[in-house]
């Protein structure tokens, strides 16, 4: 998957919402409903990765998009 990496979670959410506006998600057209396109995930090195599949990226974003993201390993059996 193509990801954009952000230093903060807020930055990633802001980009997701920006794309939601561009896509006409219901929250932005009707005042309720879907607001964001995708949810950021924290990477192993503390950045925030946003899956930008289907996003309309600008040139700068196109040049920085990466598929190489490492997420923390699941810990499901610890609970």
């Amino acid at each position, binding site marked *: 998957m193509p990801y954009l990496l952000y230093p903060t*979670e*807020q930055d990633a*959410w802001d980009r*997701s919402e920006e794309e*939601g506006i561009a*896509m*006409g*998600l*219901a*929250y932005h057209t*009707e005042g309720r*409903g*879907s*607001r*964001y*396109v*995708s*949810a950021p*995930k*924290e990477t192993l090195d503390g950045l925030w990765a946003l*899956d930008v599949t289907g996003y309309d990226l600008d040139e700068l974003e196109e040049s920085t998009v990466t598929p190489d993201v490492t997420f*923390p390993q*699941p*810990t*499901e*059996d610890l*609970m």
Partner: protein
Amino acid sequence: VLSKPITPKSMNVLGHGLALPLNRQSLDLATGPLINFGGASAAYSLRDLNGRNPRIVRVRRASDNHERDFYKDGINSGELTNWVNSQIVPPLDIGVLTPEGRIPVPEGGTSIGIPAAAYSLRNLSTTYTGNVVDVRRSSDDAEDSFTAAEVADGTLTDWVSEDTTQYMQFDGVDEDISTPALLPATDDFTFTIKFILDEVPASTMGLYGSLSSGSSGRNVFQINTSGQAFAFISGVAALTTANSINVGAINTFVLSRSGTNWSLSLNGGTADTATGSIALDTAGSNIGDPYSGINFNGIITSLSVGTITWDGSAADATAKGWTVNGSPTSTLLNDGFVSKWYDQSGNDNHATQGTAASQPKIVDGGSLVTKLGQPSMDFTTGSTMLLSDSFSITETESAVFAIWQPAKDSATTVQARNRTLFGNASSQIYIGTPNADSQMSFKRFDAVKSFTLGLANLNTPNLHAFVGTTAGADYYFNGSSIYSDTATGTNSIRNHLRIGAKQNLATHDTEGYISELIIYDSDQSANRTAIEANIGETYGITGIPAYDNTVDGFVETWYDQSGNGNDATQSVAASQPKIVDAGVLVSGGLDFDGVDDFFGLIDLDNSNQPNTIISVSRTDVTGSTRGIYGLGSDPSSASGYYRSSNNHTIYAGIILEGSVYTSGTEYLRFDLFNGASSVIGVNGASTVGNSGNRTLTHLMIGDSLLSGVNPLNGRIRELIIYPTDQSANRVAIETNINNQYNIY
């Protein structure tokens, strides 16, 4: 890490023990809606759990991200899938079918072909931004151009109403206005009266004049049966204009006296004149019912003579001391007529009509003309039509799509005869009803083909489609073929489009409504359903199948049926579970993708154990932990899930495993969190043990950990949370659910 879009709900003010809003005594416990045993905190299902046809889900369709709510009745009836699959690509943007589907033209797809002409009151392409109509307003004959958005948003009707003119509608029976004699006996004057008639009167109709047929100097002004203006001035002359009224438009009748010279004109046409001297009757007069002629049946917008000006309102008449007889309606004249219907194809085959009386109406009395909830054009006035002389197609391969009502509302079978959608100037091709009851016809290769179409389909608006090919022609009504023909012939060029009429205007004009007309000079057999699907969607015509059932639908909200308002929401589009997959309703509940789909967080206001969670779900994988739900002071502290050990499991600080699960199999689970007496029940069987003592406050659905590492790869059909121990009711609840889904 708490995901941002999760907004905890306010605390449930109703609290524990709230009974579901239904009468448990009235329900069939085994097969009806699931009744409440002590009050659920939250209840999610795709069926009706409380017997009130509640809202079930709010769905986002992937094609355009539009969202709407669905009730139980709409889910299994096909309403949901039809809505998700709706064809949102307008006709001029439809791309040819490829292995990847139809890629819209604005997105790089190849066009199915540009029509010869495309008329509508909406935009037929997302890239079309031009005008759709030119409109003339009847109040002052001003004209302006309007886009589809301006038609829809009220700009058009506002403009038509800008120059408002009062008018009075006379019924032709007993509605008129008694006045003193308005014409001076001997002085010069110019008398002007403006009026509208829907048709040329069958009998000479009075406009204004003296009350008495015996008085000296009597006068009467009328419209005769040829539509000409007529004025009789006793002792002088009878004047008749050469020209006739414009039906459906404002007409201006002017009689003037200058010394001994008299002059009568209509609409500025050549005046009829006479000379003579007479003292006019001053005994009194009447508007609408003079001494001669039938009562006026139409609209009078104003009257003026000398210093007297009547604005067409009852109030103004009364203020002048006149007597308004009967109850004529008096309002503003706000009609708008189409003088140009723009061709959106790019071929500039715009359809025009320069004659006011022949223009279809788009604003009627200040209101936009609509049919099927969309703007339309009223062709009910006689001989209305629009022309495009530049239009040209070849006869063999062609296609026509139209929203069309051939005859007027409630027309009889006779009245529905000979109503034409379009033809060319020589009527070499056309679509229209023949001179026969309850039939439709088209003309092609010099032969008329007629076939049955019931009256109810002729005096209502519907989707008509015609496709001509080298092998014949087919006629479709609301998406279904109603006639097929195999005739072939010379591929002649046909010019000069007429919309709403063919060669014989007097008897073959449409008297109904046309909202949209698209004519292709090509065989559109392969694309017909795609075009019809969009038109059907736009105009709400049911029964037209979506052309390409490949759209996904996602659940933004899964509504809580408990009455506590604990709706499960997901505002991130990519994390919404699927309810329609590639056009087909997902069986077995909502489909969670195993990656990032979930709902949460929902603040349930549960506190201490015991708590009962009943679920119907499945996982599509084994060997990895997949959460059905998470609960707790934060959701990660307790959960119910499919564990990597391949056992059903609950956890509130201590893992309690139940029986073995298999992938793809649906299970009814009865999870009781009750410390050392916890139960994990699967399909009626039980494993009892200690699951821990954590509180169960917040809920997430489709995962068991906030970190998102145990997303369910499977489906959830039903999930009910009780803040109580429901062991005593377990059998009844499980029976109800199992009878519903036949799980075991």
